[in-house]
């Protein structure tokens, strides 16, 4: 197979045999783990955006840690943490614009928050509230998708409608490496290719589908190379390099809006923690050393902080101020969520249909009426 240059010239390529090297050095990278610029910013990334990137990543990392604590305290249900994947989620979401459609999985609330979902709403979701999946009115943030890969075809449909209606918006489907084994992954990429929909398939390959490593998930070395089968562009990037993520997303979005169809992005990253708070990663991987290795050598926040400090854009005082500020925001969101009116039992009967069925209406009245057992002596 001949090599194809995908997206821009300094983007990593992967199609030819010799380029199927899956070491980290083959990834498209702009900001090295040491915080040095190793790629072209293309004149698109200004200092204010870079600072915002850092602030957002700190915000969502604090949010994630807070959520784990809340789950441990019994104030939230099972929670899916994302620490380690901040650059992928924040960078991609920051590239989006308000009319775009965001299809997150259960691990993508960092992307949802950065795109405009309120943190209080995300807390409500993990608290099992009936209203935890409502999008802000001016945005299209879909409910976190729980079945794997199924949301990918929805993102084809919404993008298809945008195209037919001449709306300049893209649809972005988030998914993980495990999703690449599902049939819906194939059907989504195939449909998007056939109908040239403005869909961006954003894969966070964190190496593990709960416990199964990617090497056992797939004989293909990368997920990005699958794009060749659909004749759509695919690119493999350093998912912990927020500059690479943002620039790749911007380019994919431009292609989509120019009528050039879908793009598959594979952002290579790592979740430091468990699949969910109900999972123990020590069971299936050398958790301590792997997690430590990624934290020490490839952390997405650390490298941007070093870069910003070297540019004179960041310092310890700002860091302390930022941590205090985001913690205050998170605490305020928690207060809002915990004081939000609780879901009432009768809420389960609402919004099944535009008009409720007679069955549900009757069952609702059974639910709220007093028990027949009242008045019966014990």
């Amino acid at each position, binding site marked *: 197979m001949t090599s194809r240059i995908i997206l821009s010239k300094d983007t990593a390529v992967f199609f030819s045999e010799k380029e199927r090297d899956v070491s980290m050095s083959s990834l498209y990278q702009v900001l090295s783990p040491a915080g040095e610029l190793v790629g072209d910013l293309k004149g698109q990334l200004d200092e204010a955006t870079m600072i915002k990137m850092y602030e957002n990543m700190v915000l969502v990392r604090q949010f994630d840690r807070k959520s784990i604590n809340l789950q441990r305290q019994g104030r939230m249900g099972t929670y899916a943490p994302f620490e380690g994947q901040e650059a992928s989620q924040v960078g991609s979401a920051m590239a989006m614009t308000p009319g775009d459609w965001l299809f997150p999985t259960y691990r993508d609330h960092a992307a949802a928050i950065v795109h405009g979902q309120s943190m209080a709403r995300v807390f409500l979701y993990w608290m099992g509230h009936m209203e935890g999946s409502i999008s802000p009115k001016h945005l299209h943030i879909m409910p976190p998708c729980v079945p794997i890969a199924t949301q990918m075809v929805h993102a*084809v449909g919404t993008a*298809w409608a945008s195209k037919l209606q001449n709306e300049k918006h893209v*649809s972005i489907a988030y998914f993980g490496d495990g999703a690449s084994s599902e049939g819906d992954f194939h059907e989504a990429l195939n449909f998007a290719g056939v109908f040239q929909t403005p869909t961006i398939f954003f894969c966070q390959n964190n190496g593990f589908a709960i416990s199964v490593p990617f090497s056992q998930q797939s004989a293909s070395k990368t997920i990005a190379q699958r794009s060749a089968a659909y004749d759509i562009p695919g690119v493999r990037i350093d998912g912990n390099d927020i500059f690479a993520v943002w620039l790749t997303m911007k380019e994919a979005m431009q292609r989509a809006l120019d009528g050039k169809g879908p793009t598959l992005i594979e952002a290579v990253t790592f979740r430091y923690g468990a699949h969910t708070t109900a999972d123990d990663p020590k069971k299936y991987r050398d958790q301590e050393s792997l997690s430590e290795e990624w934290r020490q050598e490839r952390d997405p926040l650390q490298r941007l902080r070093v870069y910003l400090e070297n540019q004179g854009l960041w310092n310890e005082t700002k860091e302390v101020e930022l941590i205090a500020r985001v913690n205050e925001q998170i605490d305020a969101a928690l207060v809002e969520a915990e004081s939000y009116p609780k879901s009432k039992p009768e809420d389960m009967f609402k919004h099944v249909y535009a008009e409720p069925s007679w069955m549900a209406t009757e069952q609702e009245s059974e639910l709220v009426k007093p028990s027949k057992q009242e008045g019966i002596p014990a």
Partner: protein
Amino acid sequence: MKRKLTMIQAITEAMDQKLADDSRMMLLGEDIGVNGGVFRATEDLIHKYGPERVVDTPLAEAGIIGAAIGLAMNGKIPVVEIQFLAFIYPGFEQIVSHAARMRYRTRGQYHVPMVIRTPYGAGIRGPELHSESVETFFAHVPGLKVVAPSTPFDAKGLLIAAMEDPDPVIFLEPTKLYRAFKQEVPEEMYRVPIGKAKVVQEGSDVSIFAWGAMLRVAEDAAKQIERENGLSCEVIDLRTLYPLDRDTIIASVKKTGRAVVVHEAHKTAGLGAEIISIINDEALIYMKAPVKRITGYDVPVPQFSIEDDYLPTAERVKDGIMETATF
């Protein structure tokens, strides 16, 4: 103007008129464009409305239904054709986990106005897995509506109602009746309400409940038994299988005190059981005999050389009627 149409013609006309009426309408499916569908339900519509609105899709049911969900959420009204009911299973997850739940999960912010049309049922000498009647899978899922017409008139009116419904509708078309007979069908658009059964024939001794292709079998049995035994049967076409029209079911059995349910689906956990349960809840003391079910057997629908032995016949229905009448 009144003309006589077959069911397939009535279905085509319903889609044709809605495509003309509402620019949001789209048809999606395998071979529905140039080929006009394997049963020709979409014949010529691609030429009239173009390939952007009458779309030949890749052969992938989850892809078709999943993409249609996205289209519906973003302003379109997709009508999906699945070639045969037993081919819907790859898209089952999209139907039950997403189409049926989107309104619920977003508290009404997004909804999925879409119709999934599919031929169903046996009796056409089809190959394996072309003859299933698994409506009960869908009639178990809150968030879906399930419709099965038995006449050209109802097929057009129910399909238009389904295309105008704000929620997903599974539209089951009895394959055997596609071209079985013609009926007067108004040329203009009209709606047959979803959720309403129809008393096809009034009677006083036994109520017979049926839908789809079994309606004809029930009517045949009722006519024969009246002639042969002087029993007066009330024949009811349920038309909508979810939600069931409880009021019509109850009003009929309160009058007759006897009932037979006829369906070609397997007996166990078939909708007949649900109808008996409704009667049990609302009219038990009116009943003079246990309700009889005449159904397909609890076996896979067999190869076509013996499919007629699987399907309920007028003879079997008559036996059921006599059993309840002489209890």
